[in-house]
């Protein structure tokens, strides 16, 4: 459960990157973006982000039943905190 706030922070950080890049992209594409294109591009951005996050997110969750897994999960959390500067 200690890792739950890290999941939220990592989600927030990556969502910020995603929306910032998405807006840049739409502004480059001009005014008349077909709805189908807009949808496909939005899906693209979510697809990339979600597939990258899947592994790390999974390794922030553990059932806590065995000790090795818990300590590894905490190490993963510390590493993510460092690598993404998640501690504020």
């Amino acid at each position: 459960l200690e890792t739950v706030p890290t999941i939220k922070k990592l989600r927030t950080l990556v969502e910020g990157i995603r929306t910032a890049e998405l807006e840049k992209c739409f502004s480059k594409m001009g005014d008349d973006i077909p709805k189908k294109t807009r949808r496909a591009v939005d899906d693209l951005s979510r697809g990339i982000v979600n597939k990258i996050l899947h592994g790390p997110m999974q390794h922030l969750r553990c059932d806590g039943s065995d000790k090795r897994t818990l300590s590894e999960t905490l190490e993963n959390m510390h590493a993510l905190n460092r690598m993404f500067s998640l501690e504020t």
Partner: protein
Amino acid sequence: SRKHDLLLHLKSGKNFLRTQDPESACLQFKNALELAQRLNDPIEEKKAARGIGASLQRLGKYKEAIQYHSMVLSASERVGEDSGNTEAYGAIADCYTELGELDQAGNYYDKYIARLETD
């Protein structure tokens, strides 16, 4: 047309969110939600509900936000089409995290994570 009005409310809601005005955003999304429900349009209903949820989160109203994000999930179930669910699970979990209910947050993050590899 009403559908046109609905889309305008959604668009202006998004703009208000972008310009850091969640209160105005919330109003626009609520108008959109009402129209979507009247038009029986579950796809736009989900977008409106998600918008309200996001606005309420910015306003720090996490309990209310959870209710609106949950509307996305129930609309998905109703129509058998699950677009927006990944985002809804994640957002609900974020709200529970803010409320300090980490057990509940964990449950919803698990549903969120399980969907990250699907499309």
